[in-house]
């Protein structure tokens, strides 16, 4: 029968809070940058290419970047997902992209690509956090 691990047995956080914040902030702003900063070059490069590309395909498919509208919970959640991609989101807004064409056949596909790219980047941020903590 295996024994349960206690708090004393668990590995301690190996990173300083400031460094963790920088890693997570950078990982959010530039997909893959957190991993690159931590020396995980292969993973970082794949995220750096794949996630912005997925976001770009979403824009190409005429998806919409949702506003932070609290009156409609689903739109609000979509807006949070959109912002998960970091800098590409702000770049798209700056270029007036992501207005969304509701009548386009590919509109919903575009939304799915845009939101999923952001949500996947949230997972990448969590992974970078774990690496920085020495858990992986």
């Amino acid at each position, binding site marked *: 029968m295996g024994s349960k691990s206690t708090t004393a047995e668990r590995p301690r956080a190996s990173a300083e809070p400031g460094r963790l914040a920088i890693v997570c902030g950078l990982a959010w702003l530039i997909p893959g940058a957190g991993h690159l900063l931590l020396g995980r070059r292969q993973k970082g490069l794949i995220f750096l290419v794949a996630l912005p590309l997925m976001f770009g*395909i979403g824009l190409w498919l005429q998806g919409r970047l949702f506003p932070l509208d609290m009156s409609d919970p689903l739109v609000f959640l979509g807006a949070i997902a959109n912002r998960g991609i970091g800098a590409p989101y702000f770049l798209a807004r700056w270029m007036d992209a992501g207005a969304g064409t509701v009548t386009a056949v590919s509109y919903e596909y575009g939304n*799915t690509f845009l939101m*999923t*790219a952001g949500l996947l980047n949230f*997972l990448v941020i969590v992974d970078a956090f774990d690496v920085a903590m020495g858990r992986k």
Partner: protein
Amino acid sequence: MSHFWLMALFAFFVSLVFAVLLRDEPREQLKTGAMMLGGFMVTAYVLGWLMYPFPL
């Protein structure tokens, strides 16, 4: 681009990111990614056919 190819493209990106997150060795990443991609595609294809008789 057809619905099928858009789905395949979507499945490819999701599989790629998950495989790279979950595995550290390139060979394992490739294996996991291929299995996930296959799983997504087969599941979507089967579900598509199962839904076929139902009218909208």
